């Protein structure tokens, strides 16, 4: 279980966390051999050793001996990770799958092997549960609106910093990134006061321009958009940094070529810059999407899922089922979320991969 907050999401959470494409975007300047997965054997080192041994003919077994030593050292170095990984990640992932097919409840905690298998019963129960379907809808709402909005704001901020703001660029960059490193719980507590109906900051500012703001978090219509706005506010800095790195990797000559051809600045951005940013957009949409699909703290602190379940998320409902002691049902719901995350990540890769 890795922390979502680093990731998002996390808080990135968190968390954004997705690995596959990272190798490609990570180190544009990396040596080809490094990307290919590591060093080949170096003949020079073997030669040095065999001279010390005084026998040129023994070079081959000696190199094998060196490899054995490497293997032994590698085992020592990976052992702590492997043990912790098996116990606290791989084991629970499989355990969760197993539990999702059983009727395990809180009272079975001390005797996890005395429970009965129920096949796909928990999955059926989850899909038949109206609140779960509501939670799935809310999560989709949050992701479908929230991810594009976050990326658009992040890209706009990145372009603003890359093209317009030359002086104090670092100050702006750090400023926009600040909310990303702060606790979602604390942010959610603060935003509850920002969004308060009468004494809140937002409605006061809206009042200056003659708008009578609603009671945001108590409204079935406005609660979810409020959570989305807060998520965009908190997370856009993370994608912005990645976009900024992507933009700075595009050579000036690309824009100059467009200028010579008489393209307007919007055309240059749309037809020259955007296609070159495709891998970056893919990466940020995957990480942001994974984080948003798991949103949990926001409704937990700000609305407790209300009003009338209008902001309850799959993660939060899963947590509630855990709280009720329905461990089998909770793990089934978590696995449904897991499968959805995997499928959506896969689709994003297919959609945004080079045409």
């Amino acid at each position, binding site marked *: 279980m890795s922390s979502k907050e680093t990731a998002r999401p996390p808080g990135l959470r968190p968390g954004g966390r997705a690995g596959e494409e990272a190798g490609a975007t*990570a180190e544009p300047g990396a040596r080809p051999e490094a990307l290919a997965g590591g060093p080949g054997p170096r003949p020079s080192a073997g030669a040095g050793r065999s001279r010390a041994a005084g026998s040129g003919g023994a070079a081959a077994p000696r190199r094998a001996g060196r490899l054995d030593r490497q293997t032994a050292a590698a085992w020592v170095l990976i052992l702590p990770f492997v043990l912790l990984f098996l116990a606290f990640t791989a084991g629970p992932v499989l355990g969760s799958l197993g539990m999702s097919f059983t009727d395990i409840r809180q009272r079975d*905690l001390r005797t996890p092997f005395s429970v009965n298998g129920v096949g796909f019963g928990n999955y059926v129960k989850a899909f038949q549960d109206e609140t779960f379907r509501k939670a799935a809808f809310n999560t989709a709402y949050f992701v479908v609106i929230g991810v594009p909005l976050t990326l658009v704001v992040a890209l706009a901020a990145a372009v603003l910093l890359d093209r317009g703001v030359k002086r104090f660029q670092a100050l702006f960059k750090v400023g926009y990134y600040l909310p990303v490193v702060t*606790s*979602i719980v604390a942010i959610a507590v603060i935003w509850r006061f920002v969004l308060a109906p009468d004494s809140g900051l937002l409605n006061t500012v809206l009042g200056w321009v003659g708008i009578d703001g609603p009671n945001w978090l108590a409204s079935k219509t406005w609660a979810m958009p409020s959570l989305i706005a807060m998520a965009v506010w908190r997370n856009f800095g*993370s994608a912005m940094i990645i976009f900024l790195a992507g933009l700075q990797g595009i050579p000036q000559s690309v824009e100059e070529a467009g200028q010579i051809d008489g393209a307007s600045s919007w055309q240059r951005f749309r037809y020259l810059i955007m296609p070159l940013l495709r891998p970056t957009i893919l990466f940020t949409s995957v990480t942001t999407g994974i984080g948003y699909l798991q949103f949990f703290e926001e409704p937990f602190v700000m609305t407790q899922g209300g009003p009338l379940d209008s902001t309850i998320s799959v993660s939060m409902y899963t947590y509630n089922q855990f709280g009720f002691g329905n461990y089998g049902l909770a793990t089934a719901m978590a696995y449904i979320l897991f499968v959805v995350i995997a499928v959506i990540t896969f689709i994003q890769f297919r959609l945004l991969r080079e045409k």
Partner: protein
Amino acid sequence: MRRTWWIYLIGVLGLVAVAAPFLWMVLGSFKTQGELLRVPPTWWPQDATTQNYNDLFSKANFPRYFVNSTLVALVVTAGNLTFCSMIGYALAKLRFKGRNALFVLVMATLMIPGMVTFVPLFVLVTNAGLANSYPGLILPFLVSPFGVFLMRQFFLGLPDDLMDAGRVDGSGELGIFARIMLPLTRPALATLGILTFLGSWNNFLWPLVIAQTEDKYTLPVALALYSTGQNAQNYGLLMAGAVVVVLPVLVMFLAFQRHVTKGIAITGLK
């Protein structure tokens, strides 16, 4: 030249939008309950008070939560620095059977939501007698796939000649790792350290389920439970609590921000 002023204006308005809730929090933490409920709200505290902080540190047990958060974050960070650099080096620089399979496996787990593992993890940790204990809070986070990835990427960029030179000098493989290669990764270790500390400090779901009595709460757990429990209407206390949760990471981030943004550039991940 003419168009730069409005670009800066937009930039500054953006900064104001980002900073305003934080300012609201800090100023609010010095207001009395009565003033916090006033309509229209005051911006600057009319009669500034430190009562909220006094309550936080006397009535509520925030010093304890602060110590818990710090302790957990420090141990988790130390574990990640040690274990992730070890396996990161092995994955980048040593040849052994199953290396690629191991790497793919680690990367695949980046995608797994915390929600998927926490129920069986809870059963496991409870049955091991570690519920509501520091080891229970710490052990599941001692390594992270993100850390492995970051350290591997960094080690890949170091030249192999250094290792070969060490071998010629008769150093063992582990000596080469510890004495020659590891000291060169200081920038990556700084990045991993700061990101891990921030992640642990802000971590919520696991401490929420495993810390069952007040004396084991971390700051986010305490703040969340205060904000949804009987103190939900005690606005000043919650604002001050949010300050205590947020301020240390803001200071830390501003001090080390170069390492944070560099780490994102190295890995593309946060």
